[in-house]
């Protein structure tokens, strides 16, 4: 009798996962990206920059799987690969092999709900995105950035694919509180090993401990986070750094969602311009605390028209005379052979100033077709990026057409960007 009971229990345990999600998902993307940039032939210094148009072709694929092993225990992962015909996006610096191949394990983790819905432990590789921001994400304090080459064509800071971090995460959900702690070790290997492992994973230069606390207050969700990171003894950067952040998501009435978040990172560096005249020179400045903040809302009407607006403050960016120096330096840099430090893009594309605004209008044209128009504006010199996106969606595939344009005079951030415009025709197949 005992044996029969045991057999029944084992049979049920084996059958249990059959009711759970056990699926392979695959997505393949083909992108054609005509791009216009300003280039200067390196062997003719001082010559004016000229417009050059290139067409980049990329094929990307991702394979995902989630497998329930036992009740409350599952494993999931995503593998991504890309073949890129022109990763530099410039005809002046083509890759030696013409085709650049990349691949990564984006996520691979074992998840165990030790107490269902209450205590969750996972280990492996995972992406952690606490931010609710669309065009900037101050709370995404550990982020590798978007993979692939079509990021930002929709105005979004988060791309379709991103590589996660190897570590272990413990989440406790009690009442209105969630407390989670993610520990990530330093993972480094030799240059020889990296020639093979670069197709699997990026190295992790720091130990990281990210703690998140979430609490529901009425209809608002409030999030607090703290990140401790260090390269540890023996590393090139052994300093201990701390980042703190807080965020809020809520509704106002039936039609508006609101989000606000702020983070501040200790011990940051930025490159300052000390001379932008005949002799270009820069120096590194230590910044004790670098705050970043975002506030935004999304309004939707009954015809499914949606308007999103966000404001972003970049405490590490430049303003006033410092900003004027950066612009002046970048103008001078344009006329040289270009070997000096790129101060304008040191924090990423279109992030040199302190104040930015973003607006996006989107809506449904019919049951299959959606359209969106967006604009990011540097609120200090009123230059910007503008884009339109059309998306046609069917059951197993989507067709996406987008165009992004940079606008502004040559004494503005966008006007100094080599990028003039970029288009993307993307076919995506889901299996």
């Amino acid at each position, binding site marked *: 009798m005992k044996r029969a009971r045991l057999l029944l229990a084992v049979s049920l345990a084996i059958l249990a996962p059959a009711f759970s*999600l056990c699926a392979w*998902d695959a997505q393949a993307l083909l992108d054609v990206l005509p791009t216009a940039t300003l280039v200067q032939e390196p062997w003719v210094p001082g010559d004016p920059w000229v417009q050059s148009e290139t067409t980049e072709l990329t094929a990307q694929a991702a394979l995902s799987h989630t497998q*329930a092993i036992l009740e409350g225990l599952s494993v999931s992962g995503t593998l991504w690969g890309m073949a890129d015909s022109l990763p530099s996006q410039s005809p002046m610096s083509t890759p030696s092999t013409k085709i650049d191949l990349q691949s990564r394990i984006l996520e691979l983790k074992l998840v165990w709900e030790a107490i*269902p819905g209450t205590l969750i432990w996972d280990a492996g590789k995972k992406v952690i995105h606490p931010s609710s921001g669309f065009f900037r994400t101050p709370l995404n304090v550990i982020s590798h950035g978007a993979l692939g080459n079509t990021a930002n064509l929709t105005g979004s800071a988060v791309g379709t694919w991103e590589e996660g971090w190897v570590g272990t995460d413990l989440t406790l959900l009690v009442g209105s509180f969630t407390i989670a702690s993610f520990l990530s070790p330093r993972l480094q290997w030799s240059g020889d090993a990296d020639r093979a492992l670069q197709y699997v994973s990026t190295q992790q230069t720091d130990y990281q401990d990210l703690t998140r606390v979430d609490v529901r207050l009425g209809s608002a969700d409030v999030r607090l986070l703290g990140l401790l990171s260090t390269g540890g003894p023996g590393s090139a950067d052994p300093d201990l750094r701390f980042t703190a952040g807080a965020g809020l998501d809520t509704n106002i009435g039936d039609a508006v969602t609101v989000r606000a978040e702020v983070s501040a990172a200790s011990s940051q560096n930025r490159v300052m311009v000390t001379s932008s005249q005949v002799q270009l020179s820069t120096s590194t400045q230590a910044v004790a605390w670098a705050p970043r903040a975002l506030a935004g809302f999304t309004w939707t009407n009954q015809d499914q028209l949606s308007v999103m607006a966000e404001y972003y403050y970049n405490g590490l960016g430049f303003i006033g005379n410092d900003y004027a120096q950066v612009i002046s330096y970048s103008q001078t840099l344009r006329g040289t052979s270009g070997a000096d430090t790129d101060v304008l893009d040191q924090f990423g594309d279109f992030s040199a100033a302190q104040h930015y605004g973003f607006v996006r209008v989107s809506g449904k044209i019919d049951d299959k077709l959606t359209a969106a128009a967006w604009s990011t504006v540097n609120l200090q010199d009123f230059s910007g990026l503008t884009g339109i996106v059309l998306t046609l969606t069917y059951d*197993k595939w989507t067709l996406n057409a987008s165009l992004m344009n940079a606008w502004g005079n040559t004494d503005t951030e966008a006007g100094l960007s080599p990028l003039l415009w970029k288009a993307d025709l993307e076919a995506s197949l889901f299996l």
Partner: protein
Amino acid sequence: MRTIRCVVMTVAALFAMTIGLYAESPQELLARVDARRYVPDLSFVMQMTSFDGEKQVDSNTLWGFINGVGSANRSLIAFTDPASVRGRRMLMDGNIVYLLFPKTTNPIRLSPLQVLMGQASNGDVVRTGFSQDYDVSSLTETDRNGVRCYLFSLAVKEGRRDASYRKVTLWVEKDSLRPAYAEFSTGDKLLKQATYSDYRTALGKDLPFSVDIHDGDNPQKHTVMAYVKVGQKPVPDTVFRRDYLPSWVPEQPR
């Protein structure tokens, strides 16, 4: 003597039943209508198919579970088909709604109106427990398709102003207490018309396995929501948190 006693008892019983019938207020009757359909901790697989006239424009398969009734209910929903939306997960906790796209880990907050205008809003109509959210303004009787029905006019309760629909007109078959048809509106504007059908006994309740929901503005546009499978899955309250969405592994009812 025995006969007299029997007659007296029968009359007394009938009198008591009559008193009982008339003692039940319209609100209590509405609660009884709800109780016949309400399954606590309902888990389901649902096919949601949208039409424009006769033409099918969209079809989704959802796995999920619902906890609670009326606007106080909470649900977790996973899109499993078609492939282009597979992996999306949605949390609906009253007016708090989060949508998690596959390959991202931060759920996006949606406004009640975004949900109301989207196809997922039809879940409101399927899940609505009327007596929790609405007061009966009037109760009359009428015929609908040759069947005698109670006709309830419902107005949202003062404390439930966040409910999706301000007014509901509900036709309930008198004999079976099965909702047959309902009109949902925000004030003066008709938003949805729902026809309940394919009643089956499942989990000890009388469930409409199919609800056909027509758009109030354009009745040519309609969505058929049909249960493929139902079951019960008790879950702790904490799963209805946005932080649980990325860890949730959806499963079918057993």
